[in-house]
């Protein structure tokens, strides 16, 4: 009997099973991705001894290492020479930027150990051998034996790639201060310390420290003591893993997956419970007589109830059977996507063995919950009562009739509206469920919309220079005139950037203060509405996020402790707060900053606008200027970000949209089938009376169309609201997501939902042909 019921209602059972499957698949995919990433990260960090504390400084003698080692809680110390250089890569028009890091003889040992992926480590005797980050080498098609060129010690040097490697420090490989990876134009190179240290003027010295802490060490204390030690050596404040760029991105991403892995599957399971309840309620209604008969023959309530719970269990079991392999497949796809982002020596898909068991338990619990309501009414039926057919549907004049709205409608429309309004709770639940699916589609595309807005803000509003070049050391402003003479340069704007602590009462934050040029067009300070908020007079303009962290507002006084040069300290008034999307901005007018730094007019880098026709010679020249430590081109960066986005966000949002469509299909198809089963008799009567198939289809499907149409604005609004709730979750120090939902998203979500509903309508409409017109004449409903 159970099998027969399942087979008879196979369409609806399948629809509910698909919704369950989507929930299971989403959970398995996301949770296994999370699990794979976190397991891989933890073992990678442990096996390759990712450091706990990091610090950069100007220059300290090797002898300091012993002192650092003596800090209580420090287990291991590693010091290096690290500097950014401009790199010439064969086949790349723009200059690339490399983080050049010194290594000892055995870089596979010690802190932040390297994993050699291809080739070998540089020979200690060779002075031109480098290991390149595997990511960078692959992006540029570089193999062991290939050569790149870099300016070291003021002169061009050809470097030979002898191998590629990965480091736990660069799981997410972005240029310092960058947000999105651009693996063609930024990479890491490791080179023998004996060669690199003198080239950087660091012979017998270092400018980068990493510490491993002993278990139970007081991290804050270690950081404070290290800062005190490094202060005289130009230390730039130590930080822990949570502020290490690569780890922070990875941790943030893991947090997001975790949120999604719990929220989205819950939604699907809730919908599945609702669908099961609807299907089973109808089944009980149709089987009143059978139930009565069984009970009249002496079957207990328990055996009757078990039948319907079995029905629900069979439905979710098929959902589980479908969802598990789909989830495993999608989990592997997701992990594959993450392989492009996060670079581990090996990132295998993994799933805890307990997950399927826990899932099975949770879904059967959900099934029992869905079945409970329907089963309760089945077991409550008294045998004699159940043998009588159910009383006809009662309709009364409702609010809509009393208002007189109905009078201007055709009878078919009145049927439609009364049927919807007769069971308002069911209608509201249907509308709500479909609107949740629509909302899910909006949410699925939200990252795409938000990042597009962010990119427009950043690249059309803020960073309008074609090229930005950063110098390895601050230069005299006279360099601006020289730069202006480079081929094709139309406009030059210099800037000064200094690392500094900003303090307000007991709060402090390490930031970079950047100078602005009044009316400068190549790099502007603007808020989310693209309004310019230039610093003026003697004041400082802070990004809103920074102001929040420091709990300051416009008009407040803050203290600035500069971490460069003579390390001056000064007080300055906050003259404006700017609502920015990226970073923790702090801006001062150029001459004001120079005066506060007590230095002559100097610049840290330049923004250039250039004639596109002169592009190549300009980039070629820039590569060859020894003072230039990094060059970034706006167009290349934008293209690279878009490519990354297409790879990841679009995959996720497409899967989410597909899943959401499954909810719409499951919901609408089920409602239509229930409506057809409840009203088949009525519709067949109408056919006998001369109504065409099209006309009765309108009556049957119109109701669902009404529900779907009502769900549309509700869903878009809920979607928008969820995005608004998500925005604070993405309120990070390095970026904020703007609350934007593009018209395309609304269009995609709306049309995907309506199209899914329309497909169900077409499938159900086909069944109208099979209505038995003759039976209607003879049978009572």
């Amino acid at each position: 009997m159970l099998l027969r019921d399942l087979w008879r209602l196979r369409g609806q059972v399948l629809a509910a099973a698909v919704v369950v499957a989507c929930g299971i698949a989403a959970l398995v995919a996301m949770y296994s991705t999370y699990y794979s990433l976190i397991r891989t990260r933890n073992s990678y960090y442990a096996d390759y001894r990712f450091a706990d504390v990091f610090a950069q400084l100007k220059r300290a003698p090797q002898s300091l290492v012993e002192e650092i080692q003596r800090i209580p809680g420090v287990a291991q110390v590693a010091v290096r020479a690290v500097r950014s250089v401009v790199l010439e890569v064969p086949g790349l028009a723009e200059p690339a930027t490399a983080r050049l890091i010194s290594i000892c003889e055995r870089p596979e040992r010690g802190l932040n150990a390297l994993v050699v992926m291809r080739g070998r480590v540089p020979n200690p005797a060779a002075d031109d051998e480098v290991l390149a980050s595997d990511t960078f080498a692959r992006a540029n098609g570089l193999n062991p034996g290939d050569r790149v060129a870099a300016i070291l010690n003021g002169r061009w040097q050809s470097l030979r790639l002898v191998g590629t490697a990965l480091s736990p420090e660069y799981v997410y490989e972005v240029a310092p201060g960058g947000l999105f990876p651009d693996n063609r134009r930024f990479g890491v190179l490791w080179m023998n310390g004996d060669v690199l240290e003198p080239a950087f003027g660091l012979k017998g010295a270092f400018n980068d420290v990493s510490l491993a802490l002993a278990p139970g060490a007081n991290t804050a204390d270690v950081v404070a003591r290290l800062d005190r030690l490094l202060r005289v050596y130009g230390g730039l404040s130590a930080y822990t893993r949570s502020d290490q760029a690569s780890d922070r991105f990875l941790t943030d991403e893991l947090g997001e997956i975790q949120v999604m892995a719990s929220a989205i599957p819950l939604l699907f399971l809730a919908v599945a419970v609702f669908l099961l309840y609807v299907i089973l309620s109808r089944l009980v209604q149709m089987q009143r007589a059978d139930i009565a008969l069984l009970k009249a023959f002496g079957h207990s309530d328990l055996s009757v109830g078990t039948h319907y719970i079995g029905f629900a269990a069979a439905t979710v079991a098929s959902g589980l059977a479908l969802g598990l392999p789909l989830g495993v497949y999608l989990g592997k796809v997701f992990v594959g996507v993450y392989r492009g982002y996060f670079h581990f020596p090996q990132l295998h898909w993994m799933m805890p063995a307990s997950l399927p068991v826990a899932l099975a338990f949770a879904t059967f619990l959900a099934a029992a919950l869905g079945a409970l309501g329907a089963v309760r009414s089945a077991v409550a039926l008294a045998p004699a009562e159940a043998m009588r057919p159910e009383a006809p549907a009662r309709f009364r004049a409702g609010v809509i009739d009393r208002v007189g709205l109905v009078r201007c409608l055709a009878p078919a429309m009145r049927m439609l509206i009364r049927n919807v309004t007769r069971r308002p709770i069911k209608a509201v639940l249907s509308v709500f469920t479909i609107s949740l699916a629509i909302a899910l589609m909006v949410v699925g595309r939200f990252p795409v919309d938000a990042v597009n807005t962010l990119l427009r803000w950043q690249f059309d509003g803020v960073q309008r220079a074609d090229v930005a070049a950063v110098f390895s050391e601050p230069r005299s402003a006279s360099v601006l005139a020289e730069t202006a003479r480079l081929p094709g340069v139309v406009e030059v704007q210099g800037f000064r950037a200094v690392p500094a602590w900003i303090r307000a009462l007991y709060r402090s934050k390490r930031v970079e203060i950047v100078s602005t040029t009044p009316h400068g067009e190549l790099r502007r300070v603007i808020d989310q509405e693209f309004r310019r908020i230039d610093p003026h007079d003697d004041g400082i303009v802070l990004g809103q996020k920074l102001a929040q962290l420091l709990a300051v507002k416009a008009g407040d006084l803050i203290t600035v402790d500069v971490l460069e040069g003579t390390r001056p300290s000064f007080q300055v008034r906050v003259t404006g707060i700017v609502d920015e999307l990226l970073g923790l901005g702090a801006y001062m007018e150029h001459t004001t900053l120079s005066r506060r730094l007590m230095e002559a007019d100097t610049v840290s880098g330049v923004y250039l606008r250039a004639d596109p026709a002169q592009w190549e010679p300009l980039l070629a020249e820039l590569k060859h200027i020894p003072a230039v430590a990094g060059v970034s081109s706006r167009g290349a960066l934008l293209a690279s970000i878009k490519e990354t986005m297409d790879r990841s966000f679009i995959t996720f949002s497409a899967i989410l949209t597909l899943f959401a469509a499954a909810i719409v299909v499951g919901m609408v198809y089920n409602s239509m089938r229930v409506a057809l089963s409840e009203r088949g008799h009525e519709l067949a009567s109408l056919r006998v009376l001369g109504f065409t198939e099209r006309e009765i289809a309108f009556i049957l499907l119109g109701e669902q169309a009404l529900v779907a149409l009502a769900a549309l604005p509700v869903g878009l609004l809920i979607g928008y609201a969820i995005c608004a709730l998500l925005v604070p979750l993405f309120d990070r120090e390095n970026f904020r997501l703007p609350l934007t939902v593009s018209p395309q998203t609304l269009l995609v979500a709306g049309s995907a939902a309506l199209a899914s509903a329309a497909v169900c309508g077409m499938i159900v409409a086909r069944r109208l042909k099979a209505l038995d017109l003759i039976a209607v004449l003879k049978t009572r409903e």
Partner: protein
Amino acid sequence: MATNPDETAESGGVFHLHDVSKTYHVGEVDIPALRSVSLDLYPREFVVLLGASGSGKSTLLNILGGLDRPTSGKVFYLDHDLTAASSAALTQFRREHVGFVFQFYNLIPSLTALENVALVTEIATKPLTPLEALTRVGLADRQHHFPSQLSGGEQQRVAIARAIAKRPDVLLCDEPTGALDYATGKLVLEALEDVNRELGTITVVITHNVAIAGMADRVIRIGSGRIIEITTNSTRMRPGDLSW
């Protein structure tokens, strides 16, 4: 629809059935429902079909109403060949020419009495107004009631109003009093008779109830799929004078 003017002109009937047989295939068994039935129905007549369960009377009604097609033989409505008509053409035929009254009324529960009638007048070409149709069956004062607020007899009269509102050429009633008590049944029969007299609609009533035969022009007895006997009443009794 194909036409055959000769045959209809010859018979003078509105419906002309010639050698109609209907066999249902149930599994591997053939069940003959009608065997070589030939029959004409004439304008304004009131016909009662009598027969036991399974005699074939409902099959005959279904074929007349364009709900079913014969296995062999021909059915003409005026000059339209219903046996050759497409499903869409049959729908059109029912829409324009046939009124149905069901045993269990089959009203739309979500529509009031008036709206149930209006549903049909909307798709008809020269209908009565819904109120006119309800007035004819004596239910003008119940027009705003929903089916669940009406008695069985009232519901059946609404169904008759719904059937006649489009001014059909033929009214086909399958056990219209089958679910009703004696007094209510009579009210319904009166409504049917009024419609037949005043609008001239050919009325075919299927019944088990032999007493109802008294109000017919002709009584057709069916058994085992054949017409056993056709009797013509010299005078039609008023429904009020029938008793059973």
